[in-house]
């Protein structure tokens, strides 16, 4: 559905995006994971034709020009900066964007009602957006992107500055959209979100894709070993285990396959009184790939 081929963009001599290529299949949730300033938003803006790449090409549904009206009609976008008019009501915002997509009359009313219901804002439809909480504004931002039922949805950091309740609601909404078969491009610097929502993730840093694959494969390939910490009821002073350190009845163990390792320890007669398994995740993938944390 979406193909980016060797995209390159620089601003005032600074390379923001460098040789970025990927393909997104219909119905896929594709994540762009990277710290702030990695180039995620620049990639999104090139995908939708707001920015022209210095080099490379974007193809959406076979069209090489994302600025074409028929292509834009198939894209919904929820920008990182809230794209709402804060002196209008939620209903008026949706009606305005609906009009721009050619909706009118009953069809427009139905779509507004549907979008409001989808993000749980039906009871606040007459409220002035400026009075909404950050979470409610983010949800309405998503609703505005969905007003015309686009098959491709671009969500740029959709949970920034959002309270836990709204974040949970946004996750649920995205999972529902995924079930509907909508293709989603999701940028975030929260690895938990990418891990939970995305089928495939591109790890981005300083304008380059460092790795791109499914979450499991990324973790397996770049996540490093899991760490198991625990305590046992009693242990022989002479007990040893490869890759582990014991101090009294406490132990630490690093392993690629934590569950199998724990099973073997249990078979060896250890009686666990406390266990903590810290598995590899996308954070450790990023750390291993760049030597830095995602939040650096």
């Amino acid at each position, binding site marked *: 559905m979406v193909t980016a081929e060797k995209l390159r963009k620089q601003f005032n001599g600074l390379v923001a995006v460098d040789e970025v290529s990927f393909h997104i299949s219909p119905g896929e949730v594709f994540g762009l994971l990277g710290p702030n300033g990695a180039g995620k938003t620049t990639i999104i803006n090139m995908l939708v034709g*707001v920015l022209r790449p210095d080099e490379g090409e974007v193809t959406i549904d076979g069209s090489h020009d994302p600025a074409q009206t028929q292509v834009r009609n198939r894209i919904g*976008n929820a*920008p*990182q900066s809230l*794209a709402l008019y804060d002196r209008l009501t939620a209903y008026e915002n949706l009606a305005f*964007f609906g009009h*721009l*997509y050619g909706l009118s009359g009953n069809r427009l009313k139905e779509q507004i009602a549907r979008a409001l219901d989808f993000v749980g804002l039906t009871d606040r439809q007459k409220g*002035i957006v400026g009075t909404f909480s950050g979470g409610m504004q983010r949800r309405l*931002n998503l609703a505005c992107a969905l007003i015309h039922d686009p098959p491709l949805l671009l969500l740029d950091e959709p949970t920034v500055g959002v309270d836990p309740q709204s974040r949970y609601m946004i996750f649920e909404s995205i999972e529902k959209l995924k079930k509907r078969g909508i293709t989603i491009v999701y940028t975030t610097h929260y690895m938990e979100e990418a891990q939970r929502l995305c089928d495939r993730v591109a790890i981005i840093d300083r304008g380059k894709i460092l790795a791109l694959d499914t979450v499991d494969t990324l973790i397996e390939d770049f996540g490093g070993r899991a760490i198991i910490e625990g305590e046992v009821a009693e242990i022989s002073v002479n007990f040893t285990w490869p890759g582990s350190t014991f101090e009294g009845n406490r132990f630490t163990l690093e392993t690629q396959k934590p569950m199998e390792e724990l099973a073997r320890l249990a078979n060896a007669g250890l009686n666990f009184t406390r266990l903590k398994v810290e598995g590899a995740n996308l954070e450790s993938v990023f750390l291993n790939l760049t030597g830095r944390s995602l939040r650096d």
Partner: protein
Amino acid sequence: MGKVITLAGKDLRLLVRDKSSLFWVIMFPLLIALFFGTIFSGSGGQMSGMKVAVIDEDQSEFSQAYISQLDSLEALSITPMVYDSAFQKVRTGRLAALIVLKKGFGQTGGLFSDTPLVEVGIDPSRRTEAGYLQGLLAQASFMQLHGKYSSPSLIREQLDKLTLDSGAWKGLDSRQLARARSFLSSMADFFESLEELSIDSTADEPSKRPAMFAVKVTSVTNDVARPRSSFEVTFPSAVLWGLMGVAATFAVGIVKERNGGTYLRLRLAPVTRTQILAGKGLACFTASFFIGVMLLALGTVVFGVRIVNPGILAVSLVAACLCFVGLTMMVSAIGKSEEAVAGAGWGILLVMAMIGGGMLPLMFMPGWLKTLSHFSPVKWGILAIEGGIWRDFTYTEIWLPVVILLGIGTLCFSAGVTLLSRTDR
């Protein structure tokens, strides 16, 4: 076109919901019109005269008539009172001055006396008005004397008194005395003949008598082409202030939209950049035109502003609005933040207002500033709107300001759109 109207409708709705902007767009221009209109008003609100106390120590018929004469002057507001009370009020600043008519004032009318028979006490903080007050007192004296000696019979009576007054001829020898009396007798005969001529005529009516020094003052214009009240001057300025308010508000709105996510969403929607700009322009024009019409309607209905040529006024208003749509686009492109655009935008607009006669009328400006005013759209806007209100411009006369306004608007619009397009890449 439907999308352009949708875009414009959204901007107008945002404007209506922004109370602080509404103040600058509607209330501020109105206050300007009312404030300056009232200050300079000749009909809408009379300027109050200088408040002075009069102490009449002479208590003669002449002094009473003199006080009435003073009271008839618009520039003075007279209150008869006793000296101590008047002194106290002037000292405490409640009155500007006191005038004392001393004993003997009625005998000579205050003229040709060895000792001053009129004393003026003035509030020290109003020294500059002392000369003005002296002038008014002299004016009243001459008016009084004019009244006293403009009737031939009154003059003849005075001449007879003088002829019989032996004290007045002291120091003259008998030959000089005979000549003087002969001259006065001839004068008396002359005035007697005038009096006979005036019988059965209307010559006794003061307005029909020849004045001592008659000057007729006329305006170098026809009867229509002059402002009938100061509001006819201040309301065109107010319209321009309204247009400046709309321009500043929309310029800030454009930069706010660009910095927020809404502009990005608009560009992702199936609308062209031209449609987006047209929507902004249409909203700005509609708001400007509405403000102009509203202010002029208020001026007409409440403050008696005449519209001598509605067609010319409509053309002028449309041209001024289009000009300020162009300015809006340019101002919105001169900064990247709302603060920068608001500050620089108002700065530019205020300079235009200052040199264009939006604050101080052009007539009070030095020559070089008048020349500079040609570069201000405010000057041309005011001139064009006045053309339809009281200057009674013809379509031949209005084309120059209209073409200049449209030219400035087009240049600014092009510059603004070019600058905005650069930042979109």
